[in-house]
């Protein structure tokens, strides 16, 4: 069913369809969950091994103190960007096509930020000392250094995770009430507790709407600040290829780009697994693809600006690293990244391609591969050829790092799909609002048409007379 007929869906049917998705997904759901659980188990084993033997097993040594763990951290933080940010922006601009897809996009934000938060802990090696980053009075009278971008990261990510979780939860309350009214057993208890006694009273709706918009206003600048701060981890160092003024906007654009691609992947996946064909329509996919294409072009521009500013700066260290990137040992990574993230998205310029669900699914995966490689080529190549030639060394990530990377994808997908199985991933009340307003607009335009025909007939009669 296409969106132009979405106004014909009955409200009761919306409830029924979404509630059915919680009970009866396709069998693929269990297959995907099984594969993801296996990946997570492998990751847990790799982490246990690293914990036991030390960070050396991850092949991290001078000068490669940062490698895949930090690339993954940046990738997952980036992924977390689009969900809440796009949901908030589209809410503030009253774009009604966000309504069937914003819930899962926000959930994507929450779970990717939870996945990202694991990597600094893994990267630390001494996992048991992680709490030292927290500012609390202690017997050593030592406080964390708030001048460090790493501390800014901790503050920004905590704020972003808390705010995104609350934004997701608040937006879900009316739907939890619907679930409560229709569920049985443990689900009934869960939804009753979480819906907090929502009854759809006018005062509840008014408070809800005001709160939701205010939270959205906070989340837009917050999301931008989080990735700017992640960029500061690099830009505030003196490493060649990292010490670049345009890094924060470049990171934000990259985050939005990979996040939009992830939304497309999950859109097609959920549409198939939970049978949301009537709600996740080609029209919405088309709009998301156009947005992704536009952001891809912004990211490309910033990427080229970065290369150009390094080239024209004539700084020998910066230039050396840039040339090493394109023609050195990591060249394949850079060229594949450029193909996946710069060339491939041009397919979205074609309407026929944008309307093909599975083509878009594979393209979104290609883009994400490109963006993951982009994070890797930001972190690793500059470390391999920095200011100190005697430390130059090319190191590729070992099995432990790669296993933990794969496990993070399994972990994210498992959490995300479990969420979609327990909570409604399509917002029922917002889709009802969309249907209501579209129906109203269409009946208004029908009335206008009738009025016009009537006026034309009168004019014709007058003319004939």
């Amino acid at each position: 069913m296409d969106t132009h007929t979405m106004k014909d869906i009955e409200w009761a049917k919306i409830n029924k369809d979404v509630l059915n998705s919680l009970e009866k997904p396709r069998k693929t759901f269990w297959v995907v969950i099984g594969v993801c659980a296996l990946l997570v188990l492998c990751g847990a084993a790799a982490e246990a091994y690293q914990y036991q033997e030390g960070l050396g097993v991850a092949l991290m040594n001078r000068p490669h103190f940062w490698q895949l763990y930090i690339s993954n951290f940046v990738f997952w933080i980036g992924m977390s960007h689009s969900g809440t940010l796009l949901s908030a922006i589209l809410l503030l601009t009253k774009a009604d096509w966000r309504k069937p897809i914003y819930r899962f996009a926000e959930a994507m934000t929450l779970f990717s930020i939870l996945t990202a938060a694991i990597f600094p802990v893994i990267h630390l090696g001494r996992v048991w000392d992680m709490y030292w980053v927290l500012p609390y009075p202690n017997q050593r009278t030592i406080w964390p250094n708030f001048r460090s971008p790493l501390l800014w990261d901790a503050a920004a990510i905590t704020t972003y995770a808390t705010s995104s979780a609350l934004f997701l939860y608040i937006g879900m309350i009316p739907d939890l009430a619907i679930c409560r009214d229709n569920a049985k057993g443990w689900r009934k208890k869960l939804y009753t507790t979480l819906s907090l006694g929502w009854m759809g009273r006018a005062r509840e709706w008014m408070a809800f709407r005001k709160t939701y918009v205010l939270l959205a206003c906070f989340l837009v600048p917050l999301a931008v600040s989080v990735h700017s701060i992640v960029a500061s981890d690099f830009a505030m160092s003196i490493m060649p290829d990292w010490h670049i003024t345009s890094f924060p906007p470049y990171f934000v654009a990259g985050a939005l780009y990979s996040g939009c691609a992830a939304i497309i992947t999950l859109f097609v996946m959920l549409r198939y697994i939970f049978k949301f064909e009537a709600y996740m329509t080609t029209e919405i996919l088309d709009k998301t693809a156009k947005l992704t294409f536009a952001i891809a072009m912004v990211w490309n521009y910033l990427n080229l600006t970065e290369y150009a500013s390094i080239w024209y700066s004539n700084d020998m260290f910066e230039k050396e690293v840039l040339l090493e990137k394109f023609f050195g040992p990591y060249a394949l990574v850079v060229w594949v990244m450029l193909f996946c993230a710069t060339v491939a998205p041009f397919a979205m310029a074609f309407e026929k391609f944008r309307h093909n669900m599975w083509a878009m699914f594979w393209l979104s995966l290609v883009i994400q591969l490109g963006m993951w490689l982009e994070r890797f080529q930001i972190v690793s190549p500059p470390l391999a050829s920095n200011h100190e030639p005697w430390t130059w060394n090319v190191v590729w990530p070992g099995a432990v790092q790669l296993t933990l990377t794969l496990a993070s994808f399994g972990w994210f997908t498992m959490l995300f799909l479990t969420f979609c199985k327990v909570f409604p991933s399509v917002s029922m009340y917002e889709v009802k609002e969309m249907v209501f307003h579209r129906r109203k607009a269409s009946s208004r335009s029908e009335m206008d048409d009738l009025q016009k025909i009537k006026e034309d007939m009168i004019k014709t009669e007058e003319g004939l007379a």
Partner: protein
Amino acid sequence: MRRKKHLLFATFEDFDKARDVVSELKVLDLKEMVVENIELYSPIEHPEVEAILGEFHQPIQRFTFFGAITGAVCAFLLTAAAAQAMFTVQPQGGKAVIPLPMDIVIVYEGAILFGVLSTLAAFFIYSGMPRRLRKYYSQKVSEDQIGIEVQILPENKEKVRATLDKCGALEIREVIQ
């Protein structure tokens, strides 16, 4: 002793009927003072709710504003106090003990975090949640019907019921609390 509340809870097919019934009840109330309070329940936000029921006083944005300011001040105090506490342990070598440009990031995050939390607190205060479900609450309201709850004096029950019936109520429940 607390006076018992008499309520009539009726459900309607759509917003238009709900709007008509509220208007009728208001007219009746102007003439005969029969209604004490009207409450509207709906599956989506009523597009003209304030035009029907009047404006709601919910200054949530004030909580947001003062929450954000409190957050900024607290975050600044934390960073400044930590820098002071570290002064003897970690000499600054001529640099500012309390560096404003760096602290701005933490202050910004603090403002947002406290702003969000205080907005949430305001939401709970003004929406009256969390609360128990009312016994007469109809599940149909979360599906596709509009509910109207009218608080009345017992002697006016029949007049109000007749009005609700006339406007096409699908179901009317009578409650004494």
